């Protein structure tokens, strides 16, 4: 098996999907000849041509709206949003049209489309390039939200998202694009949407997270083991909607303590929804209130202050200590 970076796994996944299904196409800004600003679509224009690797005019409302038109007509557009912050112009189509058409047309039409969104911070980028857009959309019924944390899942979840008959926001942890390699099978395989993974087994506390912060959580778990001898279980949600409630609740019932981690602003975040779900389903098992490690209620700061904003292993460890010593 080849060892690929996360970005290579995505590139491979796109090609596999396009070879398999002539209705799959990619579109977005600079995704054709240039191969995408992160090189996620490198080689696709050369292999599949301009009709299936489309460089669009610079207008997210235009090309996301048009992609919906393509999708209801039978194509499967995989749209690259160049950076998370630039999803904003497409908001109208997402909330008022894409998320609703299946319901509005009572199933007559649906939108089998994937928006690939390089997400979150950590690369010291310019403004609007480091957003946590899951929080813009978890409260908007009709959109699935997927967030891989490693190359294997990235390819498998992407292929599952493309196969899925409904619109999927596919959040790619841009900070992990080239940070490590892992074995990725050749050819077609899928990772089921809505199934979490246990990234590290443990008995003392459950850490619930997704995307880039699976790695922050793993680092904190190692520290907790080294410093306190506590074994933290790290649950990689992989998919926010649909959500694998069973795995979450089973883990919390086992460890009786939970920490949720995301870098989205604190108030009203999906992380808070996780706390609510634990309250609904496992309150009587808890030895301590669930702790949240999150971003702050400010816009992602410019790069010199980025580290103030982002959760790190130290903050997660502190949260583990707080629930363990409650």
């Amino acid at each position, binding site marked *: 098996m080849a060892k690929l970076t996360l970005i290579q796994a995505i590139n491979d996944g796109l090609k596999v999907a396009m070879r398999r299904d002539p209705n799959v196409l990619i579109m977005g*800004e*600079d995704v*054709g*000849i*240039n*191969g995408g*600003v992160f090189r996620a679509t490198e080689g696709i224009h050369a292999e599949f041509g301009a009709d299936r690797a489309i*460089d*669009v*005019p*610079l*207008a*997210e*409302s*235009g090309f996301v709206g048009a992609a919906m038109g393509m999708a209801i007509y039978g194509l499967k557009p995989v749209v690259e949003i160049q950076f998370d*912050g*630039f999803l*904003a*112009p497409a908001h109208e189509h997402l909330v008022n049209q894409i998320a609703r058409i299946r319901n509005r047309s009572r199933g007559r039409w649906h939108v089998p489309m994937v928006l690939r969104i390089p997400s979150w911070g950590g690369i*010291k*980028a*310019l*403004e*609007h*390039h480091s957003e946590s857009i899951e929080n813009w959309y978890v409260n908007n019924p009709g959109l699935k939200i997927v967030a891989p944390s490693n190359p294997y899942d990235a390819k498998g979840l992407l292929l599952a998202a493309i196969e899925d008959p409904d619109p999927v926001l596919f959040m790619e942890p841009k900070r992990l694009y080239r940070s490590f390699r892992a074995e990725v099978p050749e050819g077609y395989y899928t990772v089921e949407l809505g199934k979490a993974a246990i990234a590290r087994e443990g008995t003392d506390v459950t850490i619930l997270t997704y995307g880039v912060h699976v790695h922050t959580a793993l680092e904190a778990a190692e520290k907790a083991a080294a410093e306190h001898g506590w074994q933290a279980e790290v649950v990689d949600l992989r998919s926010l909607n649909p959500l694998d409630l069973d795995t979450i609740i089973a883990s919390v019932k086992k460890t009786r303590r939970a920490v949720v981690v995301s870098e989205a602003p*604190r*108030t009203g975040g999906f992380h808070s929804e996780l706390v609510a779900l634990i309250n609904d389903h496992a309150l009587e098992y808890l030895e301590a209130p669930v702790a949240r490690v999150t971003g*702050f*209620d*400010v*816009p992602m*700061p*410019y*790069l*010199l*202050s*980025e580290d*103030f*904003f982002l959760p790190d292993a*130290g*903050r997660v460890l*502190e949260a583990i200590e707080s629930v363990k010593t409650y």
Partner: protein
Amino acid sequence: MSTTQANALDMEQLFEVRRVLSPDGTLVGPEPDLTPDQLKDVYRWMVYLRVFDQRSLNLSRQGRMGTFAPFGGQEACQVGSAYWLAKGKDWIFPTYRDHGAMQVLGVPTKNIMRYYMGDEQGSKAPEGVNAFPISIPIATQLVHAVGAAWAAKIKKEDTVTVGYAGDGGTSPGDFHEALNFAAVYNTATVFFIQNNRYAISTPNAKQFKTKTIAQRSLAYDIPGVRVDGQDVLAVLQVMKEAVDRARSGGGPTLVEALTFRYGPHTTPDDPKKYRTQEELEEWQAKDPIERLRKYLVSKGIWSDADEQAVYDWAKETVNAAVEAAEAEPRPSVDAMFDYLYEKPTPELERQREYLKAYLAKKSQGEAKTHG
């Protein structure tokens, strides 16, 4: 006239490119209405901005600055578009590539450097300088430029606003909405569009079907003009007309300046992936700075000594700005919380307290492990 006839109109002819100097510096248009001192001032600005731009790109490549968007090649547009504006009165709404125009209007070089070094303080224009912070979301600022001019009109003030965008920036709805609003309310807004042929890698041909951007003015029934963006005297002339018209109640103008960025889109971009060396050289042969220099020399108002002096001055001044920018302290934790609202909310105060306590503990821990 039917639409087929309209389509058959030669838009390139209708929107003929305005030019004053040919690339070799000879006069091909009307003699500019500028004093020798003004001509030299314009030249100094272009040299200064080029030196600044190259230095900044280098700093970015060395990791002493974050991702940077260079405007090298577009200096005539940067200087010419802002030169006539009334400082302290008129407003500009720039993109990430218009930090040259921002400096012409009065934003200190150090601020631009701090912005790209990653300090919000760099986005704060000094009092009296009406330069809106750099807008990265494409074309959004154009509507704000319209709103500000509209407000001036309601308040019966003769302020002019300039909204900047690139060729890619003419695709979003915001561009079209801005033109329409400006037209309907006859606002004193100049839309200054630098058509540098590429939006990152995407060429004009994939961005729009029209041969010109200027012709879009027809649809909104406002004046539109194309200008050689490598000819600063032509840009100055076109902008003077547009600004004067706006100030005197004549409404908005759409200006399309034909130009080229010599460097990458931003630091990590590799332009060789999408454009040829020949195309770059073709444009470099039309260089705006060299063109004006030749004209100044031919008028007998520019010597080799002047040339040496202006570069020495530009380098020294830029060096001083780099030193000043690098001497700035890092932004504080407080700065992250202080500016979101007039007064931080109680929740923000709680978060501030938590973060400060955590960072204090962390630095103690680090001091211990290093001590």
